[in-house]
């Protein structure tokens, strides 16, 4: 099945020549619907809004193609299977995978990372081994390793974060020197600082020291061109709902040889080749890791989201994010007592977290909310990073392709208002 929209529906904007967030917004029903006050959505790092083509793909799947996959011999089931596998090919191609067999569908990045923790890590790590993470990881790339470290004597190490929100790469050789690190886990774009980390360099040094690299690409794949070969990583986790797709669908990419050698994650239907009462043997890749009925419609919806993003061009999406972040940093300078977390604009994606004097981020977010501005407030699932920065919590504005400079203007107005209320 092709994810092309049915006739009568405007196609995704062919906007490579002129990237126009105003034109892009018109494709997002939640953003074009009139509201009072108008919605200024600045929480795309939590989840993105969904364009018509994605919602239509879901609707079309359920109204025309719905059947369980990989089982039925009837045509409808074959069509559903083709649509699901077409989505897999799209995601695989989107991240530069060598083969769709290397692309495992999961619920989200968290499940993708847990898959690695529960299969590869438990099959390969022994007492005395170490896992190297960073101080700016999301809890999704910390907690699975805490659980593992609680079960066996695996040491967790951390690449420090500098005062200006960058990874301290100078510490890397020392952390890798004793050869005990078997896995490095690094977030590609920090969901708090917005920092775009030099993942390829981390992976290169890790490999030279005998370690594999897992990239948490939750915030990068939705916003910039990502190629697993160029990164030189071994595992990459992504989630669909931050990239204009539905919730409940994400993916793990891993090198084929690793996946072949890894034990399965969950047991159940579809992931087996043969089941006898005494035991089972595993299906081939990628289905070995996809037990039970998968989120089929969601995968199809994700495929449609990728087609939309490809039409925009990921280079253009990232340039837009960076431009908005730079504009936000500039405008936020006008707000007294405001402190932005993280690096200069050229080193970050479309994420800007900040503190506003002594005003608690919840209060900031509530005042903003009452002016229609939706931002995230709290620790953004990165408590250790906030501790490192000496911050209890922060407020965060984050962008996607549909975000406008006017959204930033509304944010700045709201922040002035917050200072009036709490000053």
């Amino acid at each position, binding site marked *: 099945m092709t994810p092309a929209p049915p006739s009568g529906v405007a196609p995704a904007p062919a906007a490579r020549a002129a990237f126009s967030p105003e034109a892009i917004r018109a494709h997002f029903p939640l953003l074009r619907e009139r509201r009072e*006050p108008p919605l200024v959505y600045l929480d795309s790092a939590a989840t993105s809004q969904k364009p018509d083509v994605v919602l239509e793909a879901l609707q079309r799947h359920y109204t025309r193609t719905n059947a369980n996959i990989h089982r039925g011999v009837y045509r409808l089931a074959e069509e559903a299977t083709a649509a699901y596998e077409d989505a897999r090919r799209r995601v695989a191609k989107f991240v530069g995978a060598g083969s769709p067999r290397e692309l495992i569908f999961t619920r989200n990045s968290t499940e993708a990372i847990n898959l690695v923790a529960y299969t590869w890590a438990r099959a390969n790590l022994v007492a005395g081994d170490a896992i190297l993470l960073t101080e700016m990881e999301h809890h999704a790339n910390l907690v699975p390793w805490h659980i593992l470290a609680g079960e066996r004597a695996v040491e967790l190490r951390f690449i420090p974060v500098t005062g200006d929100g960058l990874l301290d790469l100078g510490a890397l050789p020392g952390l890798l020197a004793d050869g005990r690190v078997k896995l490095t886990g690094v977030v590609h774009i920090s969901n708090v600082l917005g920092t775009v980390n030099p993942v390829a360099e981390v992976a290169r040094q890790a490999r030279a020291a005998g370690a594999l690299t897992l990239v948490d690409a939750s915030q990068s794949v939705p916003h910039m061109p990502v190629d697993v070969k160029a990164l030189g990583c071994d595992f990459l986790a992504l989630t669909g709902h931050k990239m204009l797709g539905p919730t409940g669908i994400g993916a793990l990419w891993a090198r084929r040889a690793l996946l072949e050698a890894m034990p399965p994650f969950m047991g159940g239907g579809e992931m087996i080749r043969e089941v006898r009462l005494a035991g089972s043997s595993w299906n081939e890749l990628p289905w070995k890791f996809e037990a039970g009925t998968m989120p089929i419609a969601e995968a199809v919806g994700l495929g449609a989201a990728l087609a939309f993003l490809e039409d925009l061009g990921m280079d253009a999406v990232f340039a837009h994010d960076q431009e908005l972040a730079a504009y936000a940093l500039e405008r936020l300078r006008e707000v007294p007592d405001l402190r932005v977390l993280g690096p200069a604009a050229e080193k970050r994606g479309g994420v800007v977290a900040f503190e506003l004097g002594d005003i*608690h981020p919840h209060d900031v977010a509530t005042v903003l909310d*009452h002016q229609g501005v939706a931002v995230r407030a709290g620790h953004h699932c990165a408590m250790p990073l906030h501790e490192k920065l000496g911050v209890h919590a922060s407020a965060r504005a984050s962008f996607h392709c549909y975000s406008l400079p006017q959204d930033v203007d509304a944010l700045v107005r709201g922040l002035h208002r917050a200072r009036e209320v709490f000053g």
Partner: protein
Amino acid sequence: MGDWDELYRENILEHYKHPRNRGTLEHPDITYEDANPLCGDQLRIDIEVKDGRIEKIRHSGHGCSISQASASMLCERLEGQPLEEVKKLTREDVLEMLGIELGPVRLKCALLALKTVKAGVYGITQWPGEEEGAP
């Protein structure tokens, strides 16, 4: 616009900006600390008890206006009262003191002070119906 003042009623802002009973006690009979990890709110309550009455009560820590104002109001209300009064206080009393409608996230901010006082006085870490409100 404008409906922010419904939430940040003047008395909340007043307690937030000029908190009553703020600080710590040198020799508290009861001291208890709790946190709301979701928001990073932290609260410590110190109580001096004399003849079964709350002689002095102080709160310290940091948090949003709702959590700070509710701590201030609660301490103001409890100082000089019999310790028994703590047992009688309910979440409804706190919400009535604040005088606002709150969503589930901010509700936790509002109730942190009561939870901390109750836990300190009676070792109660949960009160009836709390689990219904999760997460």
